[in-house]
């Protein structure tokens, strides 16, 4: 099982600030995903990255996959209260059947 470590565990910031959360592993990922979970709901996929060095943008969110495919980051520009939620990274095993999640970053954006 690939161990995914996320940091920070908690993050509380003011509206308009920028932030970055990280997902790291000692293993090489075949692909990596970021999900967001709101209270009372299941996680929802934000993005999948598959190529080392890949950068994907989703409005104010920028996702980066490390060159060695062992780490990833999520950067949010000008955070808004609607960005509040639990951000989870996830990776597929070599068989692409088992999806393993990190422990998550709980983000709170204060108005």
């Amino acid at each position, binding site marked *: 099982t690939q161990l995914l470590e996320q940091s920070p565990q908690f993050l509380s910031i003011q509206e308009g600030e920028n932030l970055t959360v990280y997902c790291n592993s000692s293993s090489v990922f075949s692909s990596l995903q970021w999900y967001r979970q709101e209270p009372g709901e*299941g996680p929802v996929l934000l993005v999948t990255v598959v190529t080392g060095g890949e950068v994907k943008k989703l409005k104010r969110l920028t996702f980066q996959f490390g060159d060695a495919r062992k780490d990833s980051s999520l950067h949010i520009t000008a955070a808004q209260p609607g960005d509040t939620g639990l951000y*989870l990274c996830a990776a597929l095993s070599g068989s692409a059947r*088992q*999806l393993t999640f990190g422990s998550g970053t709980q983000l709170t954006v204060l108005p």
Partner: protein
Amino acid sequence: DVKVTQSSRYLVKRTGEKVFLECVQDMDHENMFWYRQDPGLGLRLIYFSYDVKMKEKGDIPEGYSVSREKKERFSLILESASTNQTSMYLCASNRHLEAFFGQGTRLTVV
């Protein structure tokens, strides 16, 4: 709209009871998963299934079993519920990379 439906949002059961958590998906996905979610621990995989009647242990299968008699339905069974199984349980399905989740079942064992 694609959907993964879990049978209950909230359950309260007594220690020692046999508990069934049901999950149904309408996307004809081969793969289905059961996770439990606890604060600070993220989602931990209990069991998954990649075909009817097939099952694989995840990271924390002890105290649980599963059943997949039909492609669309994946059941999680707590043979004898214990208080340390109080948690949020999430079901998911996927075919390729994206996993779709149900809304979760918050189980309390008293």
